[in-house]
């Protein structure tokens, strides 16, 4: 029954199926040869080379998968025997009917291609199956071979693309592999038609039984040998040709859905129940069965393939030996980050200064012109101080941001960022933090909002909460930009290293708090994951360009919306009610109320107000300073002492996140209490650190 139901698929009205059957019936001279292999191993090249124009392209019956069948006429010089026949005359003409099987990686029932391939071999019994392997990465295809060897057709292995393997330094010994596998192994370069004759000779030798074909198949582990025997006994009287009961039993044990469905149709209820019981108890048998195949593959590879020693196999391995090393990798990461900041400010600062001058000049010109055309004084002040002084000032930092994004984009596109992620994760593990927390935290460098939302990948609620609370400590692009701007205004040449230290400080605080929380909260299940490290490659200007462009646009949009509105509000608060005298404004009142705090950190009230407005959006710090001071770079560097300047940077780095992040924290924790804990923690932490830095600094350098 099993046989018939499935056989019908092959007797569908398909000309090539008919052709196949005719080929079989012509007997002696025609051999059916199926080409199997995974995609991109040169299967089609070999097929086309052998069949030329003599091929027929259609679909597999009832499927959308392309089916190619072709003929090759071979006149081989040596006698060969077929079906144990007698040796024949010196020249022998053989017709080969070649069937190009769909590209597959294995022979599970997972895809149509895989089902077609295995069904074809089971039902049509080709005389020979040619399994084609990429000689540069033979292990990829050997798993498929291990499955092909379980089917009822002899296999000839082709090691194609020997030239590529050689270029990549992979030394593969066809003879050794042949001895290990017990079947013909033919090295080929199909693109140059090298090895064709040998392939055809091998096919004829195997078909004619003149080759000692004794394949060594993967063995099943002792743990499952008994259950397999039981299954075979259960099924023996129900499974018939062309299926082999061993194969059916093995596939059942592997959890193959298609075979399972077929067997269900086939066996009576009590047997089905018994099967269910056995299979349920061995549902993980696939791990051992497939695991044994991988062991077989790796044995074959060890026997016949010599790879260049690890560390010489190309740029990626050599670089990774350093870049993913626990110690060197961390040092490299810190050095690269320092380099990014130094470069950003070294190149960006002069440009920013120039743009700064430009915006001031425009503001001045606009003010003068508005005065001339008789615009009201408040409107003139709104344009010059509010819009240009606030949002305009933020825009002048575009060069710094652009350079920052260019360097980040560069690191990303070379493939380094994944290494940075890997190294950071290791460090976090060393400090007892949840490894998987790293991913969302990494996102935090862009923006804290996705970092908080990204904690959804953590499966334990405790780890999530912890990560959400810590996420705002990762300086987001906006916070970094503000730090960069303040750093360059306050520390000039030393800005790069100062900003780098600020980032390092934040990460240290993050790790420290993480360890602290970790002590108080119960340890959850371990985090487990594997990370793919892409190959290093030369960065692509277009990719980086797009990355920078997207970020710059997002930044400008923000400057034109949230920051613009906030700038105007800040301006209003600084303009009203006195009509221009900032010292008498609402803003001044708020600032003065905070002044006692400020004094502890050496910070004047406009700076405190600027920090407060950063709650709306981080960049507002700059906008507010622009509104309140005009040229704040000059003003700040003269008003703030060294310790106060450092205190400002520290407070700014640790200060509460923007309102969007707080909203995300509320949404993700689902608790106002935890949101308040998170925000309160940062408030206390930032002010505490600011006071500490200023007080200690003043005590040391004497203010």
């Amino acid at each position, binding site marked *: 029954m099993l046989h018939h139901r499935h056989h019908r698929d092959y007797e569908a009205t398909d000309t090539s199926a008919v052709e196949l059957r005719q080929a079989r019936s012509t007997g002696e001279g025609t051999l059916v040869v199926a080409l199997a292999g995974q995609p991109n191993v040169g299967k089609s090249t070999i097929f086309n080379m052998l069949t030329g124009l003599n091929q027929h392209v259609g679909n597999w019956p009832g499927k959308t998968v392309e089916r190619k069948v072709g003929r090759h006429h071979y006149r081989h010089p040596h006698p060969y025997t077929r079906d144990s026949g007698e040796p024949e005359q010196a020249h022998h003409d053989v017709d080969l009917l070649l069937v190009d099987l769909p590209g597959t990686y294995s022979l599970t029932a997972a895809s149509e291609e895989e089902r077609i391939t295995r069904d074809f071999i089971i039902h049509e019994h080709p005389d020979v199956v040619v399994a084609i392997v990429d000689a540069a990465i033979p292990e990829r295809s050997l798993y498929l071979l291990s499955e092909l060897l379980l089917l009822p057709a002899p296999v000839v292995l082709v090691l194609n693309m020997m030239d590529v393997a050689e270029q990549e330094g992979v030394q593969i010994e066809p003879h050794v592999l042949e001895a290990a596998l017990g079947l013909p192994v033919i090295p080929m370069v199909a693109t140059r038609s090298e090895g064709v004759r040998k392939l055809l000779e091998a096919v004829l030798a195997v078909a004619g039984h003149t080759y000692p074909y004794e394949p060594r198949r993967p063995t099943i582990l002792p743990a499952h040998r008994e259950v397999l025997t039981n299954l075979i006994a259960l099924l023996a009287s129900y499974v018939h040709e062309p299926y082999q009961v061993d194969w059916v039993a093995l596939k059942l044990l592997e959890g193959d859905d298609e075979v399972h469905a077929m067997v269900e149709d086939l066996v009576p209820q009590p047997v089905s129940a018994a099967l269910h019981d056995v299979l349920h108890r061995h549902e993980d048998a696939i791990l051992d069965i497939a695991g044994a195949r991988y062991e077989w593959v790796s044995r074959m590879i060890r026997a016949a393939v010599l790879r260049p020693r690890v560390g010489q196999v190309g740029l990626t391995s050599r670089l990774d030996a350093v870049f993913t090393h626990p110690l060197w990798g961390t040092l490299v990461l810190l050095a690269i980050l320092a380099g990014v900041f130094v470069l950003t400010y070294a190149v960006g600062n002069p440009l920013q200064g120039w743009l700064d001058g430009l915006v001031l000049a425009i503001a001045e010109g606009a003010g003068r012109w508005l005065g001339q055309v008789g615009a009201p004084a408040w409107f003139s002040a709104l344009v010059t101080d509010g819009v240009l002084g606030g949002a305009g000032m933020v825009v002048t930092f575009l060069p710094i941001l652009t350079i920052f994004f260019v360097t980040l984009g560069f690191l990303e596109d070379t493939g380094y960022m994944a290494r940075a992620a890997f190294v950071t994760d290791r460090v976090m593990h060393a400090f007892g933090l949840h490894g998987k927390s790293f991913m969302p935290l990494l996102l935090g460098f862009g923006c804290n909002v996705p970092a908080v939302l990204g904690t959804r990948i953590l499966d334990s609620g405790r780890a999530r909460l912890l990560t959400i609370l810590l996420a705002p400590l990762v300086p987001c692009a906006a916070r970094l930009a503000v730090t960069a701007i303040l750093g360059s205004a306050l520390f000039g040449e030393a800005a790069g290293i100062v900003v780098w230290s600020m980032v390092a400080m934040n990460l240290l605080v993050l790790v420290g708090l993480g360890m602290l929380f970790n002590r108080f909260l119960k340890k959850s299940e371990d985090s487990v*994951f594997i990370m793919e490290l892409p190959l290093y490659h030369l960065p692509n200007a277009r990719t980086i360009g797009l990355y920078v462009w997207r970020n710059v646009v997002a930044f400008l949009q923000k400057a034109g919306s949230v920051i613009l509105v906030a700038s105007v509000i800040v301006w209003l608060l600084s303009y009203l009610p006195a009509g221009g005298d900032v010292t008498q404004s609402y803003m001044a009142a708020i600032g003065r109320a905070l002044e006692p705090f400020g004094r502890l950190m050496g910070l004047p009230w406009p700076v405190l107000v600027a920090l407060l407005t950063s709650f709306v959006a981080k960049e507002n710090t700059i906008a507010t300073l622009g509104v309140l001071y005009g040229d704040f770079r000059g003003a700040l560097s003269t008003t703030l002492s060294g310790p106060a300047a450092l205190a400002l940077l520290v407070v700014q780095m640790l200060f509460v996140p923007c309102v969007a992040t707080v909203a995300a924290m509320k949404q993700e924790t689902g608790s106002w209490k935890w949101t308040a804990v998170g925000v309160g923690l940062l408030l206390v932490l930032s002010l505490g650190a600011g006071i500490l830095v200023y007080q200690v600094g003043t005590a040391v350098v004497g203010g």
Partner: protein
Amino acid sequence: MLQQLLVLIAEGEVRTQRGLAEALGVSEALVLQMIDQLTSQGYLAMADSCGSGCEGCGLAAACGAQHHLRLWTLAEKGRRAILNGNQGTS
């Protein structure tokens, strides 16, 4: 060998394909193949490397790059298989 791979992954440290390959004494290509198979069988799961909330953020583009990272986590089925495997051998 697949069981061994699962056990290695379950040790808790983040692993790269290369690290796993060295631990198992096989090539990276084979490790990737095993990971793919374990994923398709439901023992490992591919993690979504970015939360779904990026729309809310003006600077979401800054993290766009991370979308390319492929990460795998141990799925429930994998965890169970390790437990069963341990019971089987002890």
